[in-house]
């Protein structure tokens, strides 16, 4: 098993190298001289310019620049933001918990509603409920989530005043240290009355928005895999034994029906990140997605470069973990890859 994991890890190395190459090339292609961007409009003496170039390593041949870039990445140096002068890595991991918190909540929302909804649809196949759910699922799957977010803000937050419009917590009422970066945990740790519920309130709308597409996918997936499982012999046996329908479906069928659903959850990490970019932008949620978009607006290319690199690296590793875990859950496919 250990060897298997090691082998899979080794297989990601070429991908990482190619990823470095991609981000390296991309930033070279940006029109405009990075040095000129840095010094601004005023202009500086040629000597100072040459010094800047040397500092950034731009006087080296391109292959040397790439090797340096890759070596820095390997050592964990993802560059320094032009705008804030902070290490990109530090900035990224300060904001990352917010994104993880949002994505985790969204996935929880999607699973908690999607799995029961899909199961009921499968059991009551062809019913009014089934058809409505599948219709809703196509709609959810096709949802432009940036619009969905605005719509929810308009109705739930503005018109009915049920939730806040943006942010993670009411900073005027509550103030405490970000010990873990996860607002729900920090607000509990702070011991301030109401802080936790305020954080939950802030989380509801972004969670629904980011969870909508996975919810639709999971409901659909659960339904079809449940339908398949329900026609299996062992389900018939369980029924024939006289087990209650609840036990047959909830215990025997659902466990096996969930295997493909787990894969879908694992594979949607990437699309969750993409969705997080939009959701965070709409709700001013201070995570890495919003930061990435803002760094484009500020022409902060090291931040963009490092951000893309880090997000992709995390996704590659998570996908790998999902693959390995999947082998643990379902021994039939182990050691195939």
């Amino acid at each position, binding site marked *: 098993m250990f060897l298997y994991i090691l082998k899979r890890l080794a297989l990601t190395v070429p991908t990482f190298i190619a*990823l470095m190459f991609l981000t390296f090339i991309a930033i070279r292609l940006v029109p405009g001289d990075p040095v000129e961007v840095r010094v601004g409009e005023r202009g500086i003496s040629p000597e100072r310019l040459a010094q800047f170039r040397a500092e950034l390593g731009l006087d080296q041949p391109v292959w040397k620049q790439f090797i340096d870039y890759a070596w820095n990445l390997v050592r964990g140096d993802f560059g320094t933001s032009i705008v804030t002068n902070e290490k990109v890595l530090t900035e990224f991991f300060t904001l990352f918990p917010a994104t993880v918190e949002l994505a985790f909540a969204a996935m929880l929302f999607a699973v908690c509603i999607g799995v029961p909804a899909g199961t009921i649809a499968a059991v009551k196949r062809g019913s009014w409920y089934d058809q409505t759910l599948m219709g809703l699922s196509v709609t959810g799957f096709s949802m432009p989530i940036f619009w*969905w977010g605005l719509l929810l803000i308009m109705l739930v937050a503005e018109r009915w005043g049920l939730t806040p419009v943006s942010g993670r917590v009411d900073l005027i009422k509550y103030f405490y240290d970000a010990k873990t970066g996860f607002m729900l945990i920090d607000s509990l740790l702070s011991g301030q009355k109401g802080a936790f519920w305020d954080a939950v309130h802030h989380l509801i709308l972004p969670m629904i928005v980011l969870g909508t597409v996975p919810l639709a996918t999971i409901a659909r997936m659960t339904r079809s895999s449940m339908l398949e499982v329900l026609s299996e012999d062992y389900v018939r046996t369980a029924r024939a034994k006289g087990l209650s329908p609840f036990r047959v479906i909830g215990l025997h069928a659902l466990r096996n029906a969930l295997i493909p659903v787990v894969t879908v959850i694992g594979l949607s990490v990437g699309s969750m990140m993409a969705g997080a970019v*939009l959701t965070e932008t709409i709700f001013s949620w201070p995570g890495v997605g919003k930061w990435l978009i803002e760094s484009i607006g500020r022409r902060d290319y090291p931040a963009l470069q490092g951000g893309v690199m880090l997000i992709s690296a995390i996704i590659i590793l998570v996908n790998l973990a999902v693959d390995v875990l999947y082998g643990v859950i379902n021994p039939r496919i182990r050691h195939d890859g």
Partner: protein
Amino acid sequence: MTAETASTASAVPAAPSPLRQLWASFSENKGAVGGLAVLSLIALVALFAELVAPHSPLEQFREAVKAPPVWEDGGTWKFVLGTDGLGRDMLSRLIYGARVSLFIGLTVMCVSFVLGVVLGLTAAFSSTLVDTLITRTMDLLMAVPGLVLAILIVAVLGPSLTNTIVAVTVVFLPRYVRLVRASAMAELSKDYVTAARVIGVSKLRLMFITVLPNCLAPLIVQSALGVSEAILEAAALGFLGLGAQPPVPEWGAMLADAREFIRSNPWIVTLPGLAILVTVVSINLMGDGLRDALDPKMQRS
């Protein structure tokens, strides 16, 4: 003699053409037919935008800024769906926006289809080295989440309609390449390919005429669904300000402009998103129907 031929002909009905068969199973799916109908309507409106749209999408009616739609208080038939923050007619902008979105969706589909077929078949038919090179490149593009990759590309090339198309194509290309490669690989081991090889068919003919038609079914489904995804992706870029630039009436960019009117003029926010949703839902319904009709193995569950 003629009577005899006629009687045999009527006794053994000719096999229905593949297209007719396809339509027969496609039309069983009500959702798919509905999707096709709505999509055709949108396509027609987009095609004849000049005739259908009541105003120019760019003309600013200074006297009627943020006019409400006709069913609200103060709405007029002059601006059926109201006007936006600059006094431009919403209905006309939505109609021209359909043209922009469908254009993006179809261009992305065509380019990825052609490139996907060429690269996928090349990978399947080439030496291990070329194959590895192509597959690895596609794996890499798939490792970066779609929208993030598109954002990176647009950030590098600069935001515009053309670059949106380039970015979204790059994002979706790997799926086509993988699909073509995988189906071609599956076909390669079959007897008819061996037979064609034995009689000395040239490689190009083998690739495009012998094997390709047998890989088309999943590819067509992927293309249909790919159009809707491309439209969504392009709208998302537009919304982030990285897609089509103002004053192009692109639905995503219209939504971004409308954000400031969330409180005061909800319809300016509601309409463009509704247009995106309806278009994407109808394409997806149609794609689902196409999948069921084309591939009995992937049955609707």
